[in-house]
């Protein structure tokens, strides 16, 4: 090789070496530069800049450090670096909406955010130091931030008891229970589910054609304006029976199978033929039946579609099924037997056993059978005839295959459990674990749950889950409740924080227990946290009401709150039964520290009474909420009969601290002196005007879920 060539080559080599050295140095320089420009450091610096532009700089930067901030909760496996960028979350002066994110203060919540971190509630990736990593789904982390609307779900992951701050979650849990989702799915921390009716004797109750129609269209459709297209049997929003997406031959087979179910024979009752003979000829039979139907307050629990002035509305309660077309559904023999003794057909029904006279029973049953009907109900139903052996066999197979036994008991078929997937950890699932099929929705958990609830087939063509109909608010509530099912709580190491649900069925004893069961008091009233919420809580009724008043009320119920429509049915209770109830409530259903005997009304003086009246009228102006005479407010109970109704001991305890007796009452607690309390009690005890008896309630409004609208 010539020397010249050699020199040239070594020059080239040197040049290349020099170049690569420069590149190397540049690369090394990029690294600190890149570190300096890390996302979290940008936010750190811009917070300093932002704080310096404000008058409270010193306070805002009091515990500023240029490094990463983190909250580390060892017991709960939480490492949250969110406060690295969200530096103002505990600065009250940064609460205003004009403060730019990520510096804005966290709104006041029951938990200290510095103590609990962020990801327990908001989810996302706690240790991340980049915006996208922390908030969104990335390749390395699939748990994105929970949309604010569903944040209550996180409360439910730890708090098993219902919290007043989380109405959406509470409603969702209520719906999961009401719709008996636990029939098919495993879910944590819900009340005992309510089942659909026992079908063991359904062949006695309805025809095969009716079952066919029911399986095809189980609902009445209620549009946005509240107009009802009555083509089904249940109010759409309160319907519990979902659509099962059955094929024609499947409906035929199932209806055939169900129509031969006659294992559970209701106790038959025969109305005295003389009564039937006398009443069946009377032209006012149906009208009389309707009057009685209303007097008996059937619409407290059952709803009817009522058309007034061209507008059809659902009126009535939702404890029992809708009755608009029940006359075209059930047969006469069954109806009479049912009204006579509901328990003989359905063991766990909430329907009270009324004390019927034969006359009333005939009138009401004739009204139901002749007036609450629809001649077009079964128009599109083919004549099905008697079920064939084959249909019965296929029907039985379908009953199990479709999961019917998850909700309905049927003689000879074992209840199905775990028919659907376990959902106890659904809320912690990653998007990659979910099946989206061809659904055109965002691939995240919230969209998945909502799509699945709205149309199960859209995300899984082979889904067995039936079709429900949701209002948006209910859909969101159920979504929140499902998102709260995240398996064992993150706070499981802190068991004492998790409040377990209490189940304390009220179990009265003796003669009262029989009456309590017969009239199903618990369907509407609550005793020690057990029972319905439609009517007042009676846990302390014995301390509150006078014994005689209770007995009189049972014989002739009337409303005490002026805005409420009477809902308490007249049971035609005998004097003996009313006496037993009054006696038991006064003796055994009391608030321990309110002894009705402790205050003697006889010691009240005229001076106390006139002072009390003055306090009521002038100083405290109680008339803004309560009515005495004909004037006053609608919010609290009418006090015209307070002297006969309430015990003086209860009035005193109530004025002292209403929330101690009834935690959810809206009556404000005041600063009364002992003397004022005595005087007000003395005054109220002089009020003894009976309220005019209300004999008919022409209509009952739909169930109102409002706190403090009890009595």
């Amino acid at each position, binding site marked *: 090789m010539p020397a010249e060539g050699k020199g040239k080559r070594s020059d080239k080599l040197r040049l290349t070496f020099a170049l690569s050295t420069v590149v190397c140095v540049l690369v090394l320089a990029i690294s600190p530069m890149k570190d300096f420009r890390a996302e979290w450091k940008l936010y750190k610096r811009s917070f300093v800049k932002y704080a310096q532009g404000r008058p409270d700089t010193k306070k805002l930067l009091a515990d500023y450090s240029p490094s990463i901030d983190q909250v580390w909760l060892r017991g709960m496996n939480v490492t949250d670096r969110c406060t690295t960028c969200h530096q103002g979350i505990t600065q009250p002066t940064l609460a205003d909406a004009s403060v730019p994110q990520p510096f804005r203060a966290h709104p006041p919540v029951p938990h200290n955010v510095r103590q609990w971190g962020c990801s327990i509630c908001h989810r996302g990736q706690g240790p991340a130091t980049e915006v996208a990593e922390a908030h969104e789904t990335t390749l390395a982390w699939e748990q994105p931030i929970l949309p604010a609307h569903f944040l209550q779900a996180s409360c439910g992951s730890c708090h098993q008891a219902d919290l007043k701050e989380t109405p*959406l979650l509470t409603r969702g849990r209520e719906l999961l229970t009401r719709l008996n989702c636990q029939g098919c799915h495993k879910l944590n921390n819900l009340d005992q589910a309510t089942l659909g009716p026992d079908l063991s004797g359904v062949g006695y109750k309805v025809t095969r054609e009716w079952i066919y129609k029911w399986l095809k269209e189980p609902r009445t459709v209620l549009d946005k304006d509240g107009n009802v297209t009555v083509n089904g049997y249940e109010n759409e929003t309160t319907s519990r029976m979902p659509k099962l997406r059955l094929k024609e031959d499947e409906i035929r087979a199932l209806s055939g199978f169900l129509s031969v179910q006659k294992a559970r024979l209701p106790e038959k009752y025969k109305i005295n033929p003389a009564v039937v003979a006398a009443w069946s000829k009377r032209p006012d039979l149906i009208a009389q039946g309707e009057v009685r139907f209303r007097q008996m307050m059937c619409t407290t629990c059952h709803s009817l579609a009522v058309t007034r002035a061209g507008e059809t509305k659902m009126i009535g309660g939702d404890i029992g099924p809708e009755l608009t077309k029940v006359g075209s559904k059930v047969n006469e023999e069954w109806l009479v037997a049912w009204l006579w003794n509901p328990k003989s057909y359905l063991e766990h029904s909430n329907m009270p056993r009324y004390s019927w006279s034969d006359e009333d029973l005939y009138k009401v049953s004739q009204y139901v059978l002749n007036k609450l009907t629809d001649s077009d109900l079964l128009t599109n139903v083919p004549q099905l005839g008697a079920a064939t052996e084959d249909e019965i066999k296929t029907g039985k197979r379908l009953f199990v295959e479709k999961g019917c036994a998850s909700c309905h008991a049927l003689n000879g078929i074992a209840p199905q459990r775990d028919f659907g997937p376990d959902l106890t950890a659904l809320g912690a699932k990653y998007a990659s674990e979910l099946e989206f099929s061809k659904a055109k929705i965002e691939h995240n958990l919230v969209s998945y749950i909502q799509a699945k609830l709205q149309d199960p087939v859209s995300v899984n063509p082979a889904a067995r889950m039936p079709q429900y109909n949701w209002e948006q608010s209910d859909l969101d509530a159920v979504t929140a409740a499902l998102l709260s099912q995240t398996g064992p709580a993150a706070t499981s190491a802190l068991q004492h924080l998790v409040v377990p649900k209490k189940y304390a069925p009220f179990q009265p004893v003796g003669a009262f227990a029989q009456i309590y069961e017969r009239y199903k008091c618990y369907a509407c009233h609550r005793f020690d946290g057990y029972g319905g919420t439609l009517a007042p809580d009676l846990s302390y009724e014995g301390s509150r009401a006078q014994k005689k008043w209770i007995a009189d009320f049972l014989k002739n119920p009337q409303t005490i709150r002026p805005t409420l429509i009477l809902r308490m049915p007249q049971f035609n209770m005998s004097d003996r039964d009313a006496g037993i109830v009054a006696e038991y409530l006064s003796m055994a259903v009391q608030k321990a520290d309110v002894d009705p005997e402790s205050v003697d009304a006889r010691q009240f003086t005229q001076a106390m009474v006139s002072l009390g009246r003055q306090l009521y009228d002038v100083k405290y102006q109680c008339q803004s909420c309560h009515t005495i005479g004909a004037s006053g407010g609608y919010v609290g109970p009418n006090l015209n009969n307070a002297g006969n109704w309430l015990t003086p001991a209860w009035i005193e305890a109530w004025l002292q601290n209403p929330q101690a007796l009834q935690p959810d009452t809206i009556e*404000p607690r005041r600063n009364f002196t002992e003397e004022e309390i005595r005087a007000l009690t003395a005054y109220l005890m002089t009020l003894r005007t009976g309220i005019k008896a209300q004999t008919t309630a022409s209509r009952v409004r739909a169930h109102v879920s409002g706190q403090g609208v009890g009595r």
Partner: protein
Amino acid sequence: MKSKVLMIALLVGNVFCVLEISGCKKSAGAVNPDVAFGAYDTEADWNDSTKLVNLGYQESQGKRVFYEYCVWCHADATPAGPSNRSNVSPMPPLMNDGAKLNGESDEYIQNIVTLGGSALGKSAMMPPYGKTLSPDEISAVIAFTRAIAQPAYQKPGRPGSQYTGKQ
């Protein structure tokens, strides 16, 4: 020949280094505010039910307290139907009445709810809620009032504030 290969290897290595360190850099991320900070709850505008007002956490808690305690006298429709407003005299203001409430400071409203009307020389028909509601619950109700106010509420110090400085 050997050194040439070495050279090329070194260069390629460098390029990878550069790519590795600076290549996958993302621009400072922004969060979709609708998802992370979107409405915790909503309330239909009282004058126009088609419009929804977005509520944050505190305002939502205020909404809950309002519909439990205040709605009976401070709204024309209640969950139970009729309102008690017309039975009370002087008639209580509607809770969205910005013309009346925007001028009052948060402190003043907090006081009147806590201590009752008579303590501040107003109607005794407004009872004190200081022993029934917590200060946080009362502030939440005020936040809710501000959120639904018509005309819209402006904070003191902001342009268009209706605050009169009354205590």
